[in-house]
């Protein structure tokens, strides 16, 4: 349910595959969220590092939460370089009910942004520059810095 790919995602193919995989699941609502690299700040693209063990446990915890509401989550993300107008991220929820699906896609995507162990870099002038200003410290950060944190 969590799929990692080197480079850009094949969005039409993944959206189709997931739709067909769940076509007999009796889900009334399917909401994918697709994230695409925008042409801004003079970048040539983005690049991603992923720490898979913690991403997997984070995703599994969300999958359990979804199951408690009768829903199902799928997610795909790119590793490495993704160029302008290519896509690096798809999250999707399947749910019997519309309301659950709408609430869950929002909560899932926001928590993903705040917690998923993925690091983003701008590709600019051939360099790979950590996107520090757009990154979010995971809850509880600073533990090792001690009292002067």
């Amino acid at each position: 349910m969590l799929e990692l790919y080197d480079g850009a995602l094949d969005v039409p193919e993944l959206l189709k595959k997931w739709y067909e995989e769940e076509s007999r699941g009796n889900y009334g609502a399917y909401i994918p969220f697709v994230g695409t690299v925008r042409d801004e700040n003079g970048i040539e693209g983005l690049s991603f590092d992923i720490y898979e063990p913690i991403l997997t446990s984070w995703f599994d915890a969300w999958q359990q939460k979804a199951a408690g509401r009768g829903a199902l989550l799928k997610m795909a993300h790119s590793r490495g370089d993704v160029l302008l107008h290519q896509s690096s991220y798809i999250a999707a929820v399947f749910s019997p009910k519309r309301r659950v699906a709408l609430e869950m896609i929002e909560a899932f995507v926001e928590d993903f942004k705040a917690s998923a162990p993925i690091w983003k870099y701008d590709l600019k002038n051939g360099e790979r520059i950590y996107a520090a200003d757009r990154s979010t410290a995971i809850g509880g950060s600073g533990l090792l810095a001690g009292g002067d944190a």
Partner: protein
Amino acid sequence: MVRIEFLGPIQKPAVEMEASTLAEVAEALRADETLKAWLKNSAVAVNDTLVSGLDVALKDGDKVSLLPPVCGG
């Protein structure tokens, strides 16, 4: 020996040290000036589970990971 891994943009090779609690790891890492900013904004996992206190006991072969600020998507 405990292994310390620095994830993503920290760009520092893993180190190994003797330590019986996370507090001892913290003390050792604070001595490294190049890590100062990262210690302030990184979360910590022991054996791939995020932890929230320094009183975590460590044993031989344990892995401590530093996770700097994230931005997936």
